[in-house]
């Protein structure tokens, strides 16, 4: 796997992870190189879209990239459960904790569950939303979901030296699609996006982005593509400055991988996306996740709400 693995012995881990996250940008993908990558991606998506049904929408996310490489059969239909709900609840909890650091992770997550449930009530239960699902759980079940989220939220809170980040965006997942191929959406999973100074690489942008992604299990052969997808969705988002680096962190095994967002990473990620789209399993399945605000779940620490999907002009 190409990239820099952080030394596991350096303590505290949060210092070395934060050092890696906010280090000044030393290189970036040029506009012309990004333009070339973007054209190749769009052409490939257009070609793949030809084999999709008229109303079929496909979302390529980290799960799909991993599944495509490892499983011969199609992925399960998405359903809320402790494992699927823990991330959105934990991220909402971390946002609450950032706004009020006197909260403990347990309290922040409890408040997050309360907010999500209340929001579902106010909207009279959007079908399939996390809040609606939570509202229907009995105490024992809700406690289990809450406990899962507390564990993840505590890990994320402890992973980073938060005061050293400037205006971090927590839970900043990015969905992008081309206007010419609206039925294919690329979704980057981003736990934290931190703006970083560009220095001499500014070129009209006020800042660049460093991305922190919490990964499950241990590094697999698709980890680079999964992290690359997060970098690609930031790099192609016209509202953001250049993506500088992506850091993947696996709390279960303590490993971290720092990947600079360069032409090579984006090229190999595009190849992985197109290969995934060409696989029979992707062509035969639709989007996994239910629609709804919390399903797309894009909010940030400073309460600025971004849209769930960014269309890119062709």
């Amino acid at each position: 796997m190409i990239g820099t693995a952080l030394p596991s012995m350096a303590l505290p881990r949060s210092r070395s992870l934060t050092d890696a996250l906010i280090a000044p940008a030393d290189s970036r993908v040029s506009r012309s190189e990004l333009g070339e990558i973007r054209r190749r991606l769009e052409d490939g998506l257009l070609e793949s879209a030809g084999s999709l049904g008229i109303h079929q929408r496909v979302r390529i996310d980290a799960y799909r990239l991993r599944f495509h490489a490892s499983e011969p059969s199609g992925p399960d239909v998405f359903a809320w459960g402790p494992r699927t709900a823990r991330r959105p609840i934990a991220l909402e909890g971390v946002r609450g904790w950032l706004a009020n650091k006197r909260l403990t992770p347990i309290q922040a997550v409890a408040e997050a569950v309360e907010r999500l449930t209340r929001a579902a009530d106010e909207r009279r239960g959007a079908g399939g939303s996390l809040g609606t699902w939570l509202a229907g759980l009995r105490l024992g079940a809700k406690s289990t979901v809450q406990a899962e989220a507390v564990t993840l939220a505590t890990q994320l809170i402890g992973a980073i030296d938060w005061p050293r980040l400037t205006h971090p965006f927590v839970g900043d997942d990015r969905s992008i699609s081309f206007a010419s191929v609206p039925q294919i959406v690329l979704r980057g999973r981003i736990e934290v996006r931190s703006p970083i100074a560009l220095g001499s690489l500014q070129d009209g942008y006020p800042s660049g982005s460093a991305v922190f992604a919490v990964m499950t299990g241990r590094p697999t052969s698709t980890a680079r593509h999964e992290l690359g997808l997060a970098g690609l969705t930031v790099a192609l988002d016209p509202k953001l400055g250049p993506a500088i680096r992506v850091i993947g962190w696996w709390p279960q095994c303590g490993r971290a991988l720092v990947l600079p967002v360069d032409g090579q990473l984006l090229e190999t990620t595009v190849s992985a996306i197109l290969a995934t789209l060409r696989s029979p399993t992707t062509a035969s399945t639709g989007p996994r996740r239910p629609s709804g605000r919390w399903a797309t779940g894009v909010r940030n620490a400073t309460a600025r709400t971004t849209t769930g999907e960014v269309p890119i002009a062709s």
Partner: protein
Amino acid sequence: MTDLAVLLQPTPAPNGRTGRDDVLAAIRGNTGVRPPVDPGLSGGLREWLEDGLCSLPLDRDSELVVTKQTLRGEGRKDSESITSAIAIGALMHALFRQYVTTGRIEDPMEDGLASLELDPRRSATVRFVHRLGGSALHQFRDELETQTAILVGRWPRLSPGWMPRTQERVAVPLAGGNVVLAGVIDLVIGSPSSGQATVGLVEAKSGRPRLEDRDDLRFYALLETLRSGAPPFRVATFYTRSGQVDAEDVYDELLASCVMRVLGAIRRDLVGHR
């Protein structure tokens, strides 16, 4: 107030301290001593394991997952082997987690089953409980409520600064991913290490104390050391059957003996499959 609510009141210990104080003291150990972390310890243990694995005939095309059951020489339990004791254990784990996270349990059976029903891997246990009837169900409920009362009466309210998190999964790949040391720790407390051992590990057990219980925790102490770069300062087992705690400090020698045990178990496992 229901009978259960009466049972759930904390029970004072004979010395005037509450049972919770004793449990808390056992988990904290000697609070004045939080040993500094040897920066070479984690890497040294990992290298020892890697060196040991080099000499073993690993199958390069498959992944050997080593758990506490592997170390005990046990296989995985299938749905046929569910017993009352196992079902009580599963429910008490769910209730322990609930109590640590929310601080309340309303109806042990209802709360515990609601938790287990979320997990398809627990369907056999849920079915087992639903099939109980008559005196078997009565005894089962009685045992569950008694253990819950002990949990609520003895388990201390942890300081928020301890950042308690439950069911933390750890998976440490070795030998290029051919071997994975894996475990799920019931409760991890303490903030990440900044140079001192600051993390404690707790397992909740619903059965009688066994010698292997300490071995389980030593294995988890090794996993935590390999994962985070710092050993835990203490490991403890909380018995919901009695409300007692068995705890010990974590020393380098303890971790070293666990490395030997892991390598021995892997060697035994490989020989057993030949």
